């Protein structure tokens, strides 16, 4: 990596000309640490997984002849004797957005070299993520108690249950994995392992976490609101 300074000078050309020279010149195509481009490729593949889930959900919902259960009523919570639609889902959405905000700030402080703030912000992000998973567990047990199964439910099209458990379950697994990943990252950063080194590892963990939030944006819109 002795040519670091020469290399950076070659990644300055903007636009399509830059794209061509990135691919054509005798140098590494992507101007970033290998871990970051690998994370991007992984997230692209994950995008395809969730897209296929949501597309198959669209397909079974279009082709179902029984009425599709009204998510607004299914996910309503009783508060002070009144049914508030989608209350828990809204809280979960705000929590995940908040965790994305703390993660973005953690990445920022990592590049400023402020280890202490970085570790605490990653830790806060993981805590928000864990509470999200907890609420999802509550939501699942509530629905299972009401009789939702992958093969049927009391309100209508039987495909509702399988789509719900598959999509939110896979997303919940991603959040759970993300919490573990974040705690591991926080521990490593805190241990001084990266002292004097590039803290790109925080940005890479951040990309994963923002992606989990991004997927929820689509699930929230298509599964809960549609």
């Amino acid at each position, binding site marked *: 990596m002795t040519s670091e300074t020469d290399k*950076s000078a070659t*990644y*300055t050309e*903007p636009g*399509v000309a*830059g*794209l061509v020279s*990135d*691919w054509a010149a005798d140098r590494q*195509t*992507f*101007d*970033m*640490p290998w871990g970051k*481009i690998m994370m*991007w*490729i992984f997230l*692209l593949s994950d*995008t*395809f997984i969730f*897209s*296929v889930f949501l*597309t*198959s959900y*669209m*397909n*079974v*919902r*279009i*082709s*179902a*002849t029984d009425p599709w259960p009204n998510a*607004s009523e299914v996910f309503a919570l009783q508060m002070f004797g009144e049914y508030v*639609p*989608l209350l828990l889902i*809204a809280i979960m959405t*705000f929590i995940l*957005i908040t965790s*994305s*905000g703390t993660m*973005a*700030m953690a990445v*920022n402080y990592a*590049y*400023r070299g402020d280890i202490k703030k970085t570790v605490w912000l990653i830790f806060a992000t993981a805590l928000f993520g864990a509470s999200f998973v907890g609420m999802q567990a509550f939501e699942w047990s509530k629905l299972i108690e009401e009789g939702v199964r992958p093969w049927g439910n009391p309100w209508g099209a039987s495909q509702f249950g399988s789509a719900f458990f598959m999509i939110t379950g896979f997303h919940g697994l991603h959040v759970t994995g993300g919490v573990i990943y974040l705690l591991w990252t926080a521990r490593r950063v805190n241990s001084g392992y990266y002292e004097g080194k*590039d803290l*790109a590892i925080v*940005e890479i963990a*951040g*990309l994963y976490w*923002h*992606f989990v*939030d*991004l997927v929820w*944006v*689509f699930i*929230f*819109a298509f599964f809960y*609101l*549609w």
Partner: protein
Amino acid sequence: MSETASQQHPIGLYLKIWLLLFVFSAFSYAVDYYQVQGALRWTLILIFMFLKAGLIISIFMHVQWERLSLKYVLFLPLTAIAVLIILMAIEGDYTYLTRLLFFDR
């Protein structure tokens, strides 16, 4: 270091985006709370969804400041998903009509 790694943004930027994401989420929740129905509901849901996704991708994930070579790697493959969605929507309609014709309801 490279341009992307050394770039610095004020914390205020992230707080502003955070606030915007909150507002858009509240709006899309309001669509359900006030039971807006029909084409208006779907349009509003999609608008707020794409606004939120755009903010997360471009600002939080820093794609806005990445080079074109990465943007193409991320966004060109998504055309395959668009094709899949169109095909499966057609297929779903076909299955629905076939079921109406042949299922005894």
